[in-house]
């Protein structure tokens, strides 16, 4: 479709958003990611029944943990869309990148770079 969206996003493909575990999200932040967004099927339309619902719960758990350690829960988000909605994907990803840019870099990454 040749849609434009930010280049500083790293896409990790999974068979279902339900495959994404809490520890994967946390490890991403530990290694310096500024934001993690999980994109899953529309609720009620999960290809594998309820994987997207599990993913939403895990993203919420991640938000709670990130808030409690001072990294900021807004850096982890979940979006639901159909796999055929190309333009919506571009819109969500652009919106997320803008939000993370406003939040600034990951404090863990800043501290790591300062130490290095």
């Amino acid at each position: 479709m040749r849609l434009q969206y930010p280049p500083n996003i790293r896409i990790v493909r999974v068979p279902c958003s339900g495959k994404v575990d809490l520890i994967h999200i946390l490890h991403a932040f530990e290694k310096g990611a500024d934001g993690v967004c999980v994109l899953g099927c529309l609720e009620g339309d999960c290809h594998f029944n309820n994987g997207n619902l599990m993913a939403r719960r895990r993203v919420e758990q991640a938000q709670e943990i990130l808030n409690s350690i001072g990294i900021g829960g807004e850096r982890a988000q979940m979006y639901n869309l159909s796999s055929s909605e190309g333009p919506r994907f571009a819109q969500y990803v652009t919106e997320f990148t803008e939000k993370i840019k406003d939040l600034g870099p990951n404090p863990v990454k800043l501290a790591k770079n300062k130490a290095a």
Partner: protein
Amino acid sequence: MIVADRKPIEEIIGYLKDHKNILVLGCNECVTVCEAGGKKEVGVLASALRMHAKKEGNEVKIDEVTLERQCDREYLDEIRDSIDQYDAVVSLACGVGVQFTAEQYHSTPVYPGVNTCFMGATEKRGLWTERCQGCGQCILATTGSICPVARCAKRLFNGPCGGSTDGKCEINAEVDCAWQLIIDRLEALDRLDEYEKLCPLKDWSTDRAGGPRKVVREDVQQ
């Protein structure tokens, strides 16, 4: 099983303020089932602690190990060779595990990572309720397998009190009246005549009220 709940991360961070080499020690039994201290929770806690430490500019090494149990010496022995490199251990086992680990490794501070709550069962995922208080003199045979010591707010032994309303306890509308449950169950089992039998005075010396207890089995001791 023993039901425990996770401690707030801020509290654990407070315990570990001055430590640089930390071991997060999980347990594969009860705390795994109640999703508070198993391998997954160990990974999550260690990751969160690492991120917090890095953010604060502290050089901290955090390792993760999950033992089968922390209430048996043979499993705690598995970390005997590596324990000396750590200056603190956060044990996510129940209170028993935390204490037993500390007894085996008395020169290393062992901090609790969960709040141990009660002996209970999983009613459904995410809901654990108390069933047993370890009174040492089980009377479940006479009460249709429902315990009035653990489930009756007043620990009554011979029927409900006047506060039992619509099958609920007077302390909280969500708490079932244990004696209502017992009567219903005995009725279903066609044993209501057992309800009429008076329960004798209970010997509470086997309860925690009589002091810390022990069980001795000479026939299995080596």
